[in-house]
């Protein structure tokens, strides 16, 4: 993400006071809604839970001990697996789409991009609920499969998607796909046509050109897409709850519950801090690897 945007020569100039003024709303916003809340989470994560959303202001490491106990390590692993699979599927589905859009003529390109963006104009929750009507066992999908005789004949009359882990995966991929397509599109669009011609002139076939030229050159876009999909997907909670009926209970759901029904603010804070450290580590891992390649 960084290597593509910050590499221009202007960025080495020191910003003047005007730049700081222009920048200040963002700084205030970051301080008020990121730095201060994170600081509060950090402090709360060392308090003792007194039940019903109350805390005892006594120092304890108990919340972290619980966060690293086998049950929650298992949960972190499962959440990472869901997010990892989401990222892989988004990359596999999103890359060809982004490539196609990026190589399309300029006019059509914008129209195709619009198609990707339009769903963003409706509420995310409404789109998630729309999926329940599609995947419901009397929903659009099953009605279609039944009409095609696929459910009664091939599936022995047993086919349910809604309220299974599969439903969670489908909607996770659906939700995050644009976050993969857009950055990959960005790097496909910048591809230098002459490099492709050169590859072809030097005798590389389309497959070889793709693997040796196109893929390495679009990797920054894929890297950015992976971060933009993986990081939020690990902590997702609304989709998992709606699509699984509360049985796929990932780390995002656990944290949400600690600030709601669970009423355990310190534990929720500790889990949040663990996730945050995980994200920062992932981010550095990625940006380091991008620099070395």
């Amino acid at each position, binding site marked *: 993400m960084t290597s593509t945007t910050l590499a221009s020569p202007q960025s080495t100039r020191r910003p003047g006071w005007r730049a700081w003024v222009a920048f200040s709303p963002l700084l205030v916003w970051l301080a008020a809604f990121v730095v201060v809340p994170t600081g509060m989470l950090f402090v709360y994560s060392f308090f003792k*839970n*007194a*039940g*019903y*959303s109350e805390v005892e202001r006594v120092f304890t490491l108990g919340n972290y001990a*619980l966060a690293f106990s086998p*049950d*929650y390590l*298992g*949960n972190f692993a499962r959440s990472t697996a869901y997010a990892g699979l989401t990222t892989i599927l988004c990359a596999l589905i999103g890359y060809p789409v982004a490539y196609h859009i990026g190589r399309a003529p300029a006019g059509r390109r914008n129209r195709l991009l619009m198609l990707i963006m339009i769903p963003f104009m409706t*509420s995310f*929750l*409404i789109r*998630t*609920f729309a999926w329940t009507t599609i995947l*419901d*066992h*009397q929903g659009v999908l099953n009605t279609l499969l039944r009409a095609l005789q696929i459910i009664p004949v091939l599936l022995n009359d047993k086919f349910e998607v*809604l*309220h299974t882990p599969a439903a969670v995966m489908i909607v996770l991929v659906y939700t995050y796909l644009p976050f993969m397509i857009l950055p990959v599109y960005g790097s496909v669009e910048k591809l230098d046509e002459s490099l492709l011609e050169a590859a072809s002139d030097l005798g590389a076939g389309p497959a070889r050109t793709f693997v040796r030229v196109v893929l390495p050159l679009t990797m920054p876009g894929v890297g950015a897409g992976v971060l933009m999909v993986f990081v939020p997907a690990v902590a997702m909670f*609304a989709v998992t*709850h*709606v699509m699984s*009926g*509360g*049985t796929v*209970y990932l780390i995002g759901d*656990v944290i949400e*519950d*600690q*600030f*709601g*029904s*669970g*009423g*355990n603010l310190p*534990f929720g804070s500790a889990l949040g801090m663990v996730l945050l450290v995980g994200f920062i580590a992932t981010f550095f891992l990625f940006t380091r690897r991008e620099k070395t390649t």
Partner: protein
Amino acid sequence: MKHLCLLFAFAICLAGCHRDKSSAATAPTLHLFAWSEYVPREVIDGFTKETGIPVDYEVYDTNEKMLAKLAPGSAQYDIIQPSEYMVEHLIKRKMVAPLDLAQIPNLSNLLPEFRNLAYDPGNQYSVPYMSGTVGIIINTDKVKEPVRGYADVFQEKYRKRIIALEDNREMVSWAFATRGIAINDVTPENLAKVKPMLREWVKMVKLFNSDDPKALLIRDEVDLGIVYSGEAAKLMDQDKRFKYVLPAEGAHRFIDNLCIPAGSKNKGAAMQFINYILRPEVSKIISDRFPYTNPNAAARKLLSDGQRANPASYPPDAGNLELFRDIGKANADVSVLMTELRS
């Protein structure tokens, strides 16, 4: 469904804000924070029409969630709807304002058994809204064997056919009742005793849902489960396949109340609203839409024979029912246990 309800609440809120502008000169908005699927739209509209006080209605699906949002510094509400044990807890923490009973003369409409209860002697802080039980709903087309109690529900053969309330304390109480432990005796030792059984139960549940279990039962998503009696009563009215059973091991009888948070800036309007809810004809509308046990004697007289005969709303044999008490800090242990089991 929880999120759908929130969405609706948000829409209603927007509508409320809109109205707010048109009648801005008349009265500040009354902020109602109540259970989802519990306060009929026409009841709220009726109040606004009569008094000119706009009402916005935000929803929750567990007492604990309501409490978390009520914490100092959070949003301001004028009316909340806590269950009996939560009223007890809120009084202890001085989070609810004392009521001026002179402004709530309709309190006399309540049956004596719903007045002056142990969790709030003299109704100083709370007025019962509706009552009900937590029990077993069965689709008799799908479940042929008799189901009498929790142990009959949580069986291997019903794995992934079960719906359960998404409520930590409720689920723990079912396990307690099954093991013969008093449902209010929440201690670390007792929680440890039921932990292995609860771990199995959690895995058998297909859906955790407190807001709208009837929709999922009616579409055959699940075949049996544990729901609120009002949901069951409505379901049985719509579909004769369903039957409601009070668990033989004992069950939770809840009483949901109207209270005014200590931080409310609109207490006068809030008491006006409480008194309005206690009118027989208003209370009857609530029973029509959400057929829980109506504590209002005058309203019960207005109900049809059919409504009064619904065994989920008005169980003929009250059986082994118990109210929840405030368990204070032990709630933390319940939350930690259930989070671990579901994780």
